[in-house]
């Protein structure tokens, strides 16, 4: 099922940070992994990814380094910094609060009978 772009926009950063929490990756690898892990639900455009990555790097949440592959190709890998890990934790918490609030509304609102 394709997802509305506006829904994706708010969560792309957290998804990228989460991917990098597992291991260092290069841009193309992130898009592929994201699509694979979400059964092609999240089909991130590369044009969306790079401005986000460069912004994260500028803010010190990720750092990049170049690595030469066995075929001689040089790739730019991104690595989650400790500041990035903290940011991910905060964003994750924010997401839990947000999604649980949305779910409550979608499920008919807070049941005051249980309070």
């Amino acid at each position, binding site marked *: 099922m394709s997802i509305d772009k506006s829904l994706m926009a708010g969560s792309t950063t957290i998804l990228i940070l989460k991917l990098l929490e597992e291991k260092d990756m*290069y*841009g*193309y690898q992130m898009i*592929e992994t994201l699509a694979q892990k979400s059964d092609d639900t999240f089909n991130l*455009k*590369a*044009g*969306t990814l*790079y*401005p986000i990555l*460069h*912004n994260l*790097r*500028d803010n*010190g949440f990720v*750092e*990049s*380094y*170049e*690595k*030469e592959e066995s*075929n*001689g*190709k*040089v*790739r*730019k890998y991104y690595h989650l910094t400790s500041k990035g890990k903290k940011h991910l934790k905060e964003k994750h918490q924010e997401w839990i609060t947000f999604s649980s609030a949305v779910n409550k509304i979608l499920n008919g609102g807070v049941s005051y009978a249980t309070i």
Partner: protein
Amino acid sequence: MQPFDEIKQYSKTVCDQIRWKKAHNIVTEEIENHLCDQRDAYISQGEDEKTATQKAILQMGDAVSIGRELDKIHRPKPQWAMIAFTAMLMLTGMISNYFIDSTGYSLPGLGLVSYIIAFSVFLICYLINFSFLGKYVKECYFVTFAALVLGLLLGTPVGGRIWFSRLSVSFSYLSLILPLVYSLLVYALRHKGYTGIILCGIGYIPFAIILRLVPSSTGFALFTISALVILCLSIVKGWFGIDKKKGLLFAFIPAVITVIADVIHIIRNPDLINRLLIAVNPYSDRSGAGYAYCLIRDLLANSKFAGKGTVPAQFGSNVPVIPAFNTDYILATLTYNFGWITFGGILVVFISFSILGLYHVAKQKSVLGTLVSLSVMLTFDLQVIIYIIFNLGYGILPALSLPFISYGKTDLIINSALIGFMLSIFRTGSIFKDSIKSSFHISYEDGKLTIALKR
């Protein structure tokens, strides 16, 4: 249009939207690499090269909007506050030298010419692309070494220091550039693991020996502390790719041995012990070697919060002239003449500059940017700390210079160049790319097979 030309055209369109031209290279490389990966994936799914390229470009998205987004991120970061602090320090130096110089030594033009030259040097270094330093490590190291050896052979000893008499350049100021040269050496050797650390140790020795052979010991201390910090930081950051604890042992054991050897040398040398004791308690030889320290301490004890201090009782009505007041004791002289408020004001500017500088060093994204800017900050901070301690009447290490303020053309120009380089790094460091270890490279692009044996 050939398929690879389409990729080139796409990345060019992206870059056309980014106003900061220096950022184009890193963006182009990343976009093109991504497109090639995506194209190769489509080819492996059975598409021909042309279709695969077009699909990869389509997947990437609109080049103009990507470029606009990247343009918002990639901007030079001029550090106006630090530039203002630098100008403030230069102005303080110029005015201070004018007001305290009763001999008229620096009066002509307020020493303006020296400061104009220094500010020009600062601007040139600020606007220069610092990344060239990483490409000429060997040249930087050996040219500096040759200059030091020439200094030793041709220099003339005057007033306890060695001078290049024809140029009126004090040899001791050359020690100010050694931390930077050493940071370049560490940068170049960082891929070599334990061997790299050993080579960094070997690289330290020639400079250390030369600095030990000439006065003053401040140059040696400044270089040694800086070199150790630079090397340890590189190990802790994992840039040598080795076990950090073992790496630190590799760096610390020779350092501890050197310190022990120095302590033994001092203990076995009664003159040195005597000098140290006088530096701590100058009143034990008030009319001899402790004279200047006693004078400074007496004057500071009689300094006011604001305005000229009172005359210490032992001097009657005339305060003796402080020796080397505008080079070695400008801070103490200013404090006595204008009050502790001047000392406090100058200290605040130096501390603010230092905090800002170290903050930006910590924010550097490249190894070269971090190492070079750290080396400059260490040089700057150690000069200031040693100078302040000396100006409080504790001559454990002789003062070298108070950056931009104490009188001296060579140190003024060297410090201007160093700070200019550092601010250039802060301005453009975000787009600098460290060199990677590579000696053999094969690539296939646009129907051409390229084998690069050396890059």
